[in-house]
C-alpha cells in the first residue's frame, strides 16, 4: 500500500502546475503560493521516501509496457536532490519573475518539468520513462518560448535537436526490447554483441544529449539569451544533468556493464573529452555573462561523461559526484547571473563592471561557485575532479591531458568573468545599484554553502548518496577524505597557478578584463576555428536546416503532381458520371416505369433461371 506513495512526487507538481496556469487574474500571489507549497510538499515527500525501497507495477498495454515505478538509493538520491534544487529556484523565481508577463505559463512549465523529471527518475519501465522523457521535451519547448520575442525560434531549435536524440533513444529502446525481451530496467542485460553495442550507443546518445553534451548542445547558448533565467538555472544546469547522467549510469552500470578499456568505453570517454575541450574553448571567448555560463554547463558534462566512461570505480564515483557538485555550483552561478540581470538590467560584460562593491552577497556566492567549478581545494569541485582525473589517468594519458587543459581554460574564463563583472572600475550607470532582494539571495547562499560543505566534509555525499549506487562494483574502495594520489594534486595546483598567471598577463597586456584571453582567441590556428564557430559553421542544426530546404522543394514538386491528378482527373471523371446520371432523370413517369419493368425482369431472370 505504501508503494502507491510513489505517485505523489509525480502528481503533486502536476496538479499545482495546472492550478497555477488556471489562475488568470493574478491576485495576491496565489500562484506563487501554490508553487511554493508544491515544491515544499515534494521535498518533504522525497525526503520521507529517501531510504525506502518501494516498487509497484501495473500492467497496462501489452508487449511488456507496464506502469512500474521504483525507488531505490540512486533514484531516491536524484529525487531528493532535484526536489531541493527546484525548491530553491522556486523561491528565487518569486522575486525574479515578479511582474513579468506570461507568469502563469512559467509556473505551469516549472511544475510540469519537476513532475515529469520525478516520473522519469522513478520509472522502472523503459516505455514509461520514455513517456516522461518526451513530456519533458514538450515542456521544454513551451518553457523556452515564453521568454520573449524571437524565443520561439530557439525553442524550436531545442525541440528539433533533442527530438533527434530522442529518436536515437527510442531506437535504442526498441533494439533493447528485441534483444532482451523485457522493458523493465532492472531486468535488462544487454549482450556484449555488435547489436548490443549498437543499442548501447543509441541509448547513450539519448542520455548524454539530455545532459547537454556535444553534439546535441547548440541550443543551450541560444536559450541562455532567449529563455527566462530561472529556466537556465533549473533545467540545463540541474534537472537535465540529473536525468541524463542518471540514465547514463544506469545504462553503463546496470544494463550494459561496460568494461574498462573496451572500445565502447573509449568511445564514451572520447565524447566526454571532446565536449570538455570544445565547449570550454567556446566559453572562453564569450562576452555575455549567461552565454559564458551555458558553454561551461556543456563543458562540465564532458567531465561527467568521461568519468563514467572510464568504467573504473574511482572514475564512476567521480563522474556522479561531479554531477551533484555541478548542479550545486552551476545553479548558483546562473542565479548570480540572474541577480545581476535583474539589478543591473544587462548581462553584457562590456557594460558591466565593479559590481562587487554594490552587490557583495552576490559577489561572494559567485566567488565560491567559481572556485568550485575551477577545482580549487577545498571546495567540492576539487574533490570530484580529482577522482575523475584519477580514473582518466588509469584509462589513458590523453584523456587526462584533455581534462587538465579543460580545467586550465575553465579557470581562465572564470577569472575573466569575475574580473569583468564584479571587479574593475564601476560604471556610472550603476551608482544607485542595490543588492538583490532577500528571497533571491537565500537560494544562492544555500547553494554556495552546500558547495563548501560537500567539499570540506565530502564523506557526507560520498557515503550516503553516491557510493551505495555502485554496489559491488565499488570493489571495497572508499574515496572519501583527501585524495590519495599526490601527483594529481600537485598537477592541479600547478595548472590553477598557471591560469592565474595567464589572466594577469593578459590583463596587463590589453588593459581590460574581457580582452584578457584575447591572446588565445586570436592565436593562429584557433582564430580561424573561432571565426567559423561564431558564424555557426559547426552548428549541426544549421547545417541540417540547409539540407532540409532542398528536400522540401522536391517534396513540394511531387505534391503538386499528385494534386493535379486529384483535382483535374478524378473530379472531371466524377463530373462526367454525375452529369450523365442526372440527364437520365427526365421526370417522365413513363421512363421511370420502364426502368421499373427492366429492373423487375432482371430480378426475375436472375432468380428463376439461374
Amino acid at each position, binding site marked *: 500500500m505504501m508503494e502507491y506513495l510513489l505517485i505523489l512526487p509525480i502528481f503533486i507538481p502536476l496538479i499545482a502546475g495546472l492550478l497555477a496556469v488556471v489562475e488568470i487574474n493574478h491576485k495576491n500571489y496565489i500562484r506563487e503560493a501554490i508553487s511554493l507549497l508544491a515544491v515544499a510538499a515534494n521535498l518533504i515527500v522525497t525526503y520521507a521516501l529517501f531510504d525506502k525501497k518501494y516498487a509497484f507495477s501495473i500492467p497496462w498495454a501489452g508487449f511488456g509496457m507496464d506502469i512500474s515505478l521504483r525507488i531505490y538509493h540512486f533514484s531516491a538520491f536524484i529525487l531528493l536532490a532535484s526536489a531541493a534544487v527546484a525548491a530553491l529556484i522556486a523561491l528565487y523565481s518569486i522575486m525574479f519573475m515578479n511582474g513579468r508577463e506570461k507568469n502563469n505559463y512559467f509556473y505551469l512549465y516549472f511544475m510540469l518539468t519537476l513532475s515529469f523529471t520525478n516520473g522519469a527518475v522513478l520509472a522502472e519501465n523503459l516505455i514509461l520513462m520514455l513517456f516522461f522523457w518526451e513530456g519533458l521535451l514538450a515542456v521544454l519547448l513551451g518553457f523556452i518560448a515564453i521568454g520573449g520575442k524571437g524565443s520561439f525560434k530557439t525553442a524550436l531549435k531545442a525541440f528539433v535537436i533533442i527530438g533527434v536524440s530522442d529518436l536515437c533513444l527510442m531506437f535504442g529502446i526498441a533494439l533493447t526490447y528485441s534483444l532482451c525481451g523485457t522493458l523493465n530496467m532492472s531486468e535488462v542485460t544487454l549482450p556484449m554483441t555488435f547489436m548490443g553495442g549498437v543499442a548501447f550507443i543509441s541509448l547513450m546518445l539519448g542520455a548524454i544529449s539530455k545532459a547537454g553534451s556535444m553534439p546535441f548542445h547548440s541550443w543551450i547558448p541560444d536559450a541562455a539569451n532567449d529563455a527566462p533565467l530561472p529556466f537556465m538555472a533549473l533545467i540545463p544546469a540541474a534537472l537535465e544533468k540529473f536525468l541524463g547522467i542518471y540514465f547514463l549510469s544506469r545504462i553503463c552500470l546496470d544494463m550494459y556493464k561496460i568494461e574498462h578499456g573496451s572500445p565502447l568505453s573509449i568511445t564514451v570517454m572520447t565524447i566526454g573529452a571532446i565536449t570538455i575541450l570544445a565547449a570550454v574553448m567556446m566559453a572562453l571567448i564569450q562576452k555575455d555573462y549567461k552565454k559564458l555560463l551555458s558553454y561551461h554547463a556543456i563543458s562540465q558534462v564532458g567531465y561527467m561523461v568521461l568519468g563514467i566512461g572510464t568504467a573504473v570505480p574511482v572514475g564512476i564515483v567521480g563522474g556522479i559526484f561531479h554531477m551533484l557538485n555541478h548542479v550545486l555550483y552551476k545553479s548558483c552561478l546562473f542565479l548570480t547571473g540572474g541577480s545581476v540581470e535583474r539589478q543591473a538590467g544587462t548581462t553584457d560584460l562590456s557594460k558591466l563592471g565593479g559590481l562587487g562593491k554594490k552587490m557583495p552577497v552576490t559577489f561572494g556566492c559567485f566567488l565560491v561557485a567559481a572556485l568550485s567549478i575551477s577545482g580549487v581545494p577545498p571546495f567540492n569541485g576539487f574533490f570530484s575532479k580529482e577522482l575523475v582525473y584519477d580514473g582518466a589517468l588509469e584509462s589513458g594519458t590523453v584523456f587526462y591531458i584533455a581534462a587538465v587543459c579543460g580545467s586550465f581554460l575553465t579557470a581562465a574564463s572564470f577569472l575573466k568573468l569575475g574580473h569583468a563583472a564584479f571587479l574593475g572600475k564601476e560604471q556610472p550607470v550603476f551608482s544607485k545599484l542595490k543588492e538583490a532582494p532577500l528571497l533571491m539571495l537565500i537560494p544562492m547562499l544555500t547553494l554556495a554553502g552546500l558547495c563548501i560543505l560537500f567539499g570540506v566534509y565530502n564523506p557526507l555525499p560520498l557515503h550516503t548518496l553516491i557510493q551505495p549506487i555502485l554496489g559491488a562494483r565499488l570493489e571495497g574502495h572508499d574515496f572519501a577524505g583527501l585524495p590519495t594520489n599526490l601527483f594529481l594534486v600537485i598537477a592541479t595546483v600547478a595548472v590553477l597557478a598557471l591560469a592565474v598567471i595567464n589572466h594577469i598577463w593578459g590583463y596587463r597586456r590589453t588593459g581590460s578584463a574581457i580582452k584578457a584571453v584575447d591572446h588565445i582567441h586570436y592565436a593562429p590556428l584557433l582564430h580561424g576555428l573561432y571565426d567559423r564557430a561564431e558564424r555557426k559553421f559547426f552548428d549541426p542544426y544549421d547545417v541540417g536546416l540547409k539540407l532540409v530546404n532542398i528536400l522540401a522543394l522536391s517534396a513540394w514538386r511531387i505534391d503538386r503532381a499528385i494534386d493535379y491528378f486529384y483535382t483535374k482527373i478524378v473530379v472531371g471523371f*466524377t*463530373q462526367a*458520371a*454525375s452529369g450523365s*446520371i*442526372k440527364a437520365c*432523370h427526365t*421526370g417522365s*413517369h413513363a*421512363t*421511370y*416505369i420502364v*426502368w*421499373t419493368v*427492366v*429492373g*423487375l425482369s432482371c*430480378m*426475375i431472370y*436472375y*432468380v*428463376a433461371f*439461374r
Partner: protein
Amino acid sequence: MTLLLIIFFLAAVLIINLPPKAFFKKIAFWLALFLLLLQLVFVFLPRSLWTGLNTLCSSNNFSMVQDSLSMVMLLSIAIVGLVALLVAKAHIKSENKLFNFVCLLLLCCIGMNGMVVVTDLFTLYLFLEIVAAAVYIMIVFEKNQNAYEGAFKYFILSAIATTLMLAGVGLTLSTVGALSFTALQIYFANTAQISAGATIGVLLFMAGLFIKSGLVPFHGWLPDAYQAAPNPVSILLAGIVTKSSGVYALVRLGMLGVLVPESLKTLLLAFGAATILIGALAALWQKDFKRMLAYSSISQVGYIVLSLGAGTLLGYAGAIFHMFNHAILKSLLFVNSAAVESRTGTRDMDAMGGFAAKMPWTGATSVIGALSISGIPPFSGFWSKLVIVIALWKAGLHYYAAFAILASLLTLSYMLYMQRKVFFGKLIEGYDDLREAGFLYILPSVILALITIGLGIGFPFIVGTMLMPVAIFNW
C-alpha cells in the same frame, strides 16, 4: 400494448372531427404532440407493464410482434413524427390547414405503427397502403403544380408496387399455405423444400418493397416527390415513410430467415451497391437543396439494403442501426433546409452563401448532420457504417466492404459541397437582415443533433442494450 398506439391515434382522429370544430381545431396540434410523446414514452417502458394487455390482444387475434426491431421503428416513427409536427406548426400558417395536416399525420402514424407490429404479411401490406394513401394526400396538400406531379409519380409507381406485392402475396399463399410470420419462418427454415414458386412469390413482394423504398432503378418517383412536397411532409417522407414502408419489411423478412436463398441475397447486394453509387453521383452538384437531400436518401437506403444482403446477424444489426440513424439525420437535414427556406424563400443553393454567420444554430446542426451521415467519428453515423462494413467483411464480401468505404467519400463530398455553398463562405448580398430560423425549427434540429452526438459517443455503452437483442455480436 402496441395496439393501444393504433387505437389511441384512431380515437384521436375521430374525436377531433366531431362537432365543436373551433375547439378541436385549436387543440388538434397539442393532442397530436401529446400522442407522439406518449409513443416515445411507450417505447422505453419496461416490458412487465405490458403483459396484461398483451394477453388481451393475442386472445383476440390481434397478435403483434414486440421485439426490439419494432421498438426501434416505433421510436423512429415517434421522433420523426414529432419533428414533422413541429415544423408543420411553423410552416403552415392557416389553422384549417394545420388541422387537416394533423389528422393526416395521425392517420399516417396509425399506418406506420401498424406496419411495424403486425405478424402477417397481408396485414403488413394493408397498413402499407394506409401509409401510402395518407402520404399521397399530404404531398398534394398545398396544391401546387409540382406537388401534383410528384404525388402522381409516387402514385403510379406505388400502384405498380401494389400489384407486385399482391402478386407476391398470392404466390406465397398458394405455396406456403399461410401468410403469418411464424408460418413463413417455419417454411423457409427448411431450405431443402423451398419451392420455386415460394421464391418467386417472395421475389415479387421484395420488388414491390424495392419500389416503395426507392432502390435504383425503382426510385424514379423519389426525388420529385421529396422535392415537391411541403417541408413537413418531406421530413416525414425522408425520415420514416420510406424506411418503415419499404426497408422495414425487408429487414423483417430477413430476420425471419425468408431471404435465405443465395440469389435473393445477391440481388440485395447488387441493387444496394448500385443504389449507393447512383444516388451519390446524382446528389453531387445538385442545385436544389431538397433534391440533393432526396438523392442522398436514396444512397443511404442503398447502404441499408447492402447490409441486409450480407445475410448475417451483424448485417441485420447494422441495417437496423443505420435505419434509425438515417431517420434522425435526414430529418435533421430536412429541418435545416426548411429553416433556410423559411427565412430566405428559396431552395436554390447557387443563390445562397455564408448563412452560418446569421443562422448559427442551423449552421451548426447542419454541420453535425453532414459529418454524421458521412460517417465521421464520433457521431452515430460512423458507428452504423462501421458495423455495416465489418458485417460485409466478415461475411466474406470484401469487395462490397471496400466499395462501401469508398462510397462514403462521395457522401462526404456532396455533403461538404452543400455545407460550403449554403452555410460557409462570405455572406451573399441582400441577406444582411437574415435572422435565425424560428424556435420551432431550431428545437427539433438541436434535439436531433444531440441524439446523434449522444449515440455516437455513447455507442459502446448502448451496443449491449439496443443492438444486442436484435443481433448477437461476436467480434
